């Protein structure tokens, strides 16, 4: 088999894995958009906030330490304890639920029935706010995140493929774990929304707010729940990306990676986010592999959008988006 072809397969597989990570971020957007029609610009910052909170709790950092020190002239930094990863994740999930409650209670309850652009704008404000708060709370230094996820080349795959092709494939253990977790997450979400009472309420709200309200579904509760779930998805995404690069401001920029995925998959579809993520991941990696070196590389950022654009020209509502029906 020609070398190029084998390499192409390796790039393809890695593209799939990268796509899963993009989809993980996109999932949070979809959940909120589906249930409340809000395009949540703050999703990336939520991932940052969740990851910072997780690290902060694990390391026993004092929240707002810098601010407290500046005001009171004290010198507090750490509580001096270390919380096990599992407990810290649970605590962070609780924080995200609290965050969801605050968001719902103080922002979106006042904006029910507003146009999408205004809801979008509110999330812009939220993003600014949360970005400032997370830095104030946990400081902006880079933090190592280690919740025990494996990282590095998977030797089994390397050896196995070496035996077949004479070239060992590189697959990152972290990517494998991420894929498994993403699969579990999507499965759980599907089961939750199909079979549980709250999940059905969520779908009812997604279909029609007023109809759902009239049959006795509490919008308030559903929206808090959706924001909590999105917060939890943000936490998972934050853990995955944070393990790779350390937890720092740039984590909030992963939202940019999710945008083409969303547009390709459709804003309202969970399978769309997954399939979109895979297509974008594979597409940008293969393009960078095949064409990139000829035109100078670093093509991934724009090619993801061009790819999404090509799909959208044929399906303007995204791959799995609801068909747009226009009446005059």
């Amino acid at each position, binding site marked *: 088999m020609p070398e190029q072809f084998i390499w192409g397969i390796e790039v393809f597989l890695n593209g799939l894995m990268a796509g899963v990570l993009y989809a993980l971020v996109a999932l949070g957007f979809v959940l909120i958009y589906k249930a409340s029609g809000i395009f949540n610009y703050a999703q990336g910052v939520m991932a940052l906030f969740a990851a910072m909170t997780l690290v902060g709790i694990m390391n026993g950092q004092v929240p707002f330490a810098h601010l407290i020190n500046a005001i009171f002239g004290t010198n507090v930094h750490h509580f001096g304890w270390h919380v096990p990863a599992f407990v810290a994740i649970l605590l962070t999930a609780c924080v995200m639920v609290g965050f969801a409650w605050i968001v719902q209670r103080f922002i979106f309850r006042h904006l029910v029935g507003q146009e999408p652009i205004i809801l979008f704008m509110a999330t812009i404000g939220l993003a600014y706010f949360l970005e400032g708060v997370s830095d104030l709370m946990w400081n902006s230094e880079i933090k*190592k995140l280690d919740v025990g996820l494996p990282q590095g080349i998977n030797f089994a795959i390397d050896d196995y493929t070496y035996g077949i092709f004479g070239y060992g494939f590189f697959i990152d253990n972290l990517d494998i774990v991420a894929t498994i977790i993403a699969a579990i997450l999507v499965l759980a979400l599907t089961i939750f929304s199909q079979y549980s009472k709250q999940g059905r309420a969520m779908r009812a709200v997604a279909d029609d707010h007023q109809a759902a309200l009239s049959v006795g579904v509490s919008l308030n509760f559903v929206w808090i729940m959706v924001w909590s779930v999105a917060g939890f998805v943000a936490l998972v995404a934050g853990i995955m990306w944070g393990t790779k690069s350390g937890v720092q401001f740039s984590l909030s920029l992963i939202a940019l990676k999710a945008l083409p995925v969303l547009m390709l998959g459709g804003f309202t579809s969970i399978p769309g986010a997954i399939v979109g993520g895979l297509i974008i991941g594979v597409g940008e990696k293969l393009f960078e592999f095949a064409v990139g070196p000829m035109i100078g*590389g670093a093509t991934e950022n724009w090619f993801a959008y061009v790819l999404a654009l090509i799909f959208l020209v044929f399906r303007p509502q995204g791959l799995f988006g609801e068909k747009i029906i226009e009446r005059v």
Partner: protein
Amino acid sequence: MKTKLTALALGVTMAAGPAMADLVFPSLSYRTGPFAAGGIPYADGYADYFTLLNQRDGGIGGELVSVPECETAYNTEKGVECYESTKDAGALMYNPLSTGITYQLIPKATADGIPLHTAGYGRTSAKNGKIFSHVFNYPVNYWDGASVGVNHFKDVAGGSLEGKKITLMYFNGSYGKEPIPTLEALSAAEGFEFNAIPIDYPGQEQKSQWLQVRREKPDYILFWGWGVMNQVAVQEASNIRFPMENFMGIWWSGAEIDVLPAGDGAHGYKSIQFHNVGSDYPVFDDIRKHVVDTGMAAGDGSNIGTVLYNRGVYAAFLASEAAKDAQAATGSSAITSSDMRDAMEAFEMTEAKMTAAGLPDFGPEFSVSCENHGGDGSAAIAQWDATAMEWNLITDFSNSDASIIGPLIEADSSAYAAENNIAERCN
């Protein structure tokens, strides 16, 4: 409401109250934004060293130093605001700490007669003092870094790079593109194969680039990264089991924070440095005693001795030594920015000065002249020890290959001069 206003008014008068210090060194720092993790220790070091001078020696030559800090978030527009808001306070010198802001300030500061000092960053061809009258990039610039890095690889390879393959992985922007012309020239001179792989900002996702490295199997990698790009690159390099001792970053990609997240995988990673590493210097004891323990430190003191903190200290040290020279030259303790510029142009760094400041053997010895604003281009190689969790210099400071870099600087600066109608000085 009224009490609040009174409090505010009180705050204003109090802030305006203390007499303006005479020696002003504005610090354009970035403690927020995508590069905050690197900006914080540098800014702390820069501020702490001046605080030390104030606390221990009563300033420089009897004049207190003030370091008004202005947050740029590595953003050029905020940098403009910072420059304009501090320049009228009698700023002696600017240390813009960002390539973008430097480019933007070069013409402005030159017109305003305020020198810029860009140690280890900024516009490389500013080394040519004949054209850039107010810009100083001693002791070292990116092209020197590339040259010293390649020389080190040459030593490791046993004296010849013939037939070897060197890959540059770089931040896809002006900072990362800087070394490419030098490396191309070096590749022609040394006979190694060279290719460059760009990594887009922010660099959170570098799988494609590292798969390419894995396929192409370069012998050596040079790395020009900043921000999250550093941590991810070190991690990915260890993931693909690239031999870390053949992977070398520029000084902005060689701090503790860049390698710590990768754990043991980062062991052996190298970086090019233009100052020494570690906290084993008398000056740090003084900083602990006079600055941290008295609660005057810019940070919490935990950064002392880290690479970027040391770089901040070193930059402040170079600035204060030039100010001392200026005071000696003018015979008065109150100096102006043009005195400062003259002193920087006649600046000489000696071992005696470094030892006197509590920084023995901290950086290279060099001298600046009217034609040469960049020193001799001396840099050393440091290596990360993941078990001891510390950087160690593994070579002495050595000079870059001036025969390669000189013509490149000449070409780039004369292009700038032609575009902006600048006449050569120093003739």
